[in-house]
């Protein structure tokens, strides 16, 4: 299992704050993104390839090639706007 967390506009539009997902076939963040896009609707729209998506694995900035393993916390969020 891995934990998925969503923030800001992603959290609001997908209506999900966090969820637990099976991780058997997830080698990297891109595998997770592909699986989520297959849900269709807002998932495929917000996570489309041409969208700007930021991601973190275990609270460190990551990219689609970042490897995953069981127990990881993966966060997806739009570009940050603090400061």
């Amino acid at each position, binding site marked *: 299992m891995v934990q998925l*967390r969503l*923030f*800001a*506009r992603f959290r609001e539009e997908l209506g999900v704050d966090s969820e637990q997902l099976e991780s058997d076939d997830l080698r990297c963040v891109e595998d997770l993104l592909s699986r989520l896009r297959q849900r269709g609707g807002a998932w495929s729209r917000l996570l489309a390839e041409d969208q*700007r998506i*930021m991601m*973190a694995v275990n*609270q*460190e*900035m990551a990219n689609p090639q970042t490897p995953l393993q069981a127990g990881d916390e993966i*966060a997806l*969020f*739009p*570009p*940050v*706007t*603090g*400061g």
Partner: protein
Amino acid sequence: MYTIRVDSEPFDPNHEVDLLRGEDPAIGAVVSFIGLMRDLNEGDRVDNMFLEHYPGMTENALEQIVKLAFERWQLQGCRVVHRVGELKPTDPIVLVAVASAHRKEAFQACEFIIDYLKTQAPFWKKEATENGERWVDARDSDDEAIRQWSQAGSDH
């Protein structure tokens, strides 16, 4: 050497600068940046703002940025405070204050930290405007600001 704080209450930038200066007689230069909430953005009046963040990752991200600055410049101290939660216009959003023996280091490190914070620290602003609520969009100019630091070496 440095202090990082995420604060859900209003904070006083002056107090932070005083703590940074302390009474250390080796400090010759203090440069500080205060980001303040404006009442106008993209042409709309903004009544208040909510700042969401990613607890845990936020502090890690800020610490990594500050450590990079300490590796790159000779600094005597640094304080970063970022507000989260409900804000109203004129509230301080962020303070970055840097102390050094000489001014050039302090200017560069301060601008570096706020430039990186803007694109690398997990904060998101949602504005309540006269036309409803909206998430603030990231700016391309902030991405450009970061690129300058990686191209230009420490003399940017």
